[in-house]
């Protein structure tokens, strides 16, 4: 490594804020993107034979894998016609030095909850389509996502992976025998999930940095994430409808840097929503 590159690397480690600031002052980000440019997304579906549906998504250097496993369970008493979806994301110690081995970190728990929210609110998979026999048997889809390389914005990547994996999932044809009260599945006939395709959603995340040049960054990387003063996550469906908007203030909130005035805030939020809708069109094309 040349000494200049090493010096830049040391500068980046010691003064991440100043490092990012100097890039933004020039109108670029450390990875060469413009402030509102997104990283390329690649989707590969169905590569895991042990899962009923799977997808691998690369978003820049972030890599996530989602696998769907279907099992059969008895429906809850108060909702005899509904199946289950159980989405969880794992951020293992392998994917970044930030994470420790052991039970799910706070970040992973929050992420799982947000993904669950997006899935439930979008109603992409109506739970009554998972019913096999009312009150007796229903499918339970375990939607597990694992991050292989964490380079920021796992939410967007995971949501793309989940949507692609669901689109790839097939369930064996199941019949419930009342006499023996058992469910038998066909070996040959597999049917795809009855997805509510127009309700398919993608997530689009932004971050704001303060400093000398306050900038809105689309699709933040793992280097940028800890430096953000606030984040905005928008979930958009196929028709461009906004399903949810989340805005969080985070990071070092020293002396009002993160707090923006209300009018400024709504202004940038509107800007975010416009950009999100524009980008959502591109992401939704990935599923076709």
């Amino acid at each position, binding site marked *: 490594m040349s000494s200049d590159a090493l010096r830049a690397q040391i500068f980046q480690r010691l003064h991440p804020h100043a490092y990012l600031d100097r890039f933004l002052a020039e109108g670029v980000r450390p990875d060469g993107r413009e402030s509102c440019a997104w990283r390329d997304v690649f989707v590969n579906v169905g*590569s*895991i*034979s*042990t*899962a009923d549906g*799977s997808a691998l998504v690369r978003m820049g*250097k972030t*890599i996530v*894998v989602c*696998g*769907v*496993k*279907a*099992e*059969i*369970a*008895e*429906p*809850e008493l108060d909702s005899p016609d509904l199946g*289950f979806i*159980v*989405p*969880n994301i*794992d951020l*293992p*110690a*392998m*994917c*970044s*030095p930030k994470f420790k*081995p052991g*039970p*799910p970190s706070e970040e992973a*728990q929050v992420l*799982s*909850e947000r993904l*669950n929210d997006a899935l439930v609110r979008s109603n992409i998979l109506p739970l009554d389509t998972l019913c096999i026999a009312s009150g007796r048997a229903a499918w*339970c889809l*375990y939607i*597990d996502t*694992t991050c*292989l*390389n*964490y*380079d920021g914005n796992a939410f967007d990547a995971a949501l793309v992976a989940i949507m692609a994996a669901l689109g790839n999932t097939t369930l*064996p044809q*199941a019949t419930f025998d009342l006499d023996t009260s*058992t*469910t*038998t*599945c*066909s*070996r*040959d006939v597999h049917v795809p999930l009855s997805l509510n395709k127009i309700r398919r959603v993608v997530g689009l995340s932004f971050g704001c940095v303060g400093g000398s040049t306050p900038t809105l960054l689309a699709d933040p990387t*793992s280097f940028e994430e800890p430096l953000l003063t606030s984040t905005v996550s928008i979930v958009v469906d196929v028709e461009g409808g906004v399903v949810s908007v989340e805005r969080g203030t985070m990071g070092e909130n020293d002396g009002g840097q993160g707090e923006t005035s209300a009018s400024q805030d709504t202004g940038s939020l509107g800007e975010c929503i416009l950009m999100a809708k524009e980008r959502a069109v591109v992401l939704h094309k990935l599923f076709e």
Partner: protein
Amino acid sequence: MAQNPFDRRRINGPEESFLPVFEPGQERPTTWNARCGRQSTDIRQIFLQPGLISQANGSAYIETEKTKLACAVYGPRQSKSTTYSEKGKLNIEVKFAPFSCTRRRYPLHDAEDRSLAVAIHQSIASSVRLELFPKSTIDVFITIIENDGIEGCVASGAIAASTALADAGIEMFGLVTSCSAAVRGDDIRLDPTEEETNTSDGVVVVACMPALSSITNVWQSGRITAEVTLRCMEMCQDRCIDIHSVIAHSLSSMNKAP
């Protein structure tokens, strides 16, 4: 299979759920069938890519048909324990993705990942020059994305770990390669699939450093005679030499690329 219902850190499903039961009749035969397209001494094609995980100091992704796993090396970094140690610590953790097996793997449900970690640790520990890293830990994390037989996972895990260590620039005596064999009667098959190991009499996994022609780990289970075991070991060692060139090639081609 019941999941711990009190795990509030995950999104929990119903208390009980079961694997689908299929109609009887058209089951796939689980016998020691002739291999299609592969001689008994052939191993599955290896796809090995170092440096996939940019956040790690070193990493490798390996795929041999249906066995897929990723490995990342972090370190050498400061040991967490306060006691002084002259030698570095090699810490290996293996994790199955929940969707990696035919049966869903509930998190923290069994100890299979730990026994795998021990086997891989055995395979590579003697190759790493731990005496150069006092007070430090080298963390090797392995995630199994798709599992086609535990023996294959141990072998590929050791290969990936050794490649990732090399990618991280950690000093070693030599690259470790590993190969497995399944035995049924007099028939020996290298690099067996899960179906083959399930129908075999026994399996042998050998890890070695071909550059130093020394063996680092042998794991034999099942009912095999000593002569057959030795023959398996020889056959595995031959294949390990081929695998060694695969690793060397993947490492050098990565360094050539800008």
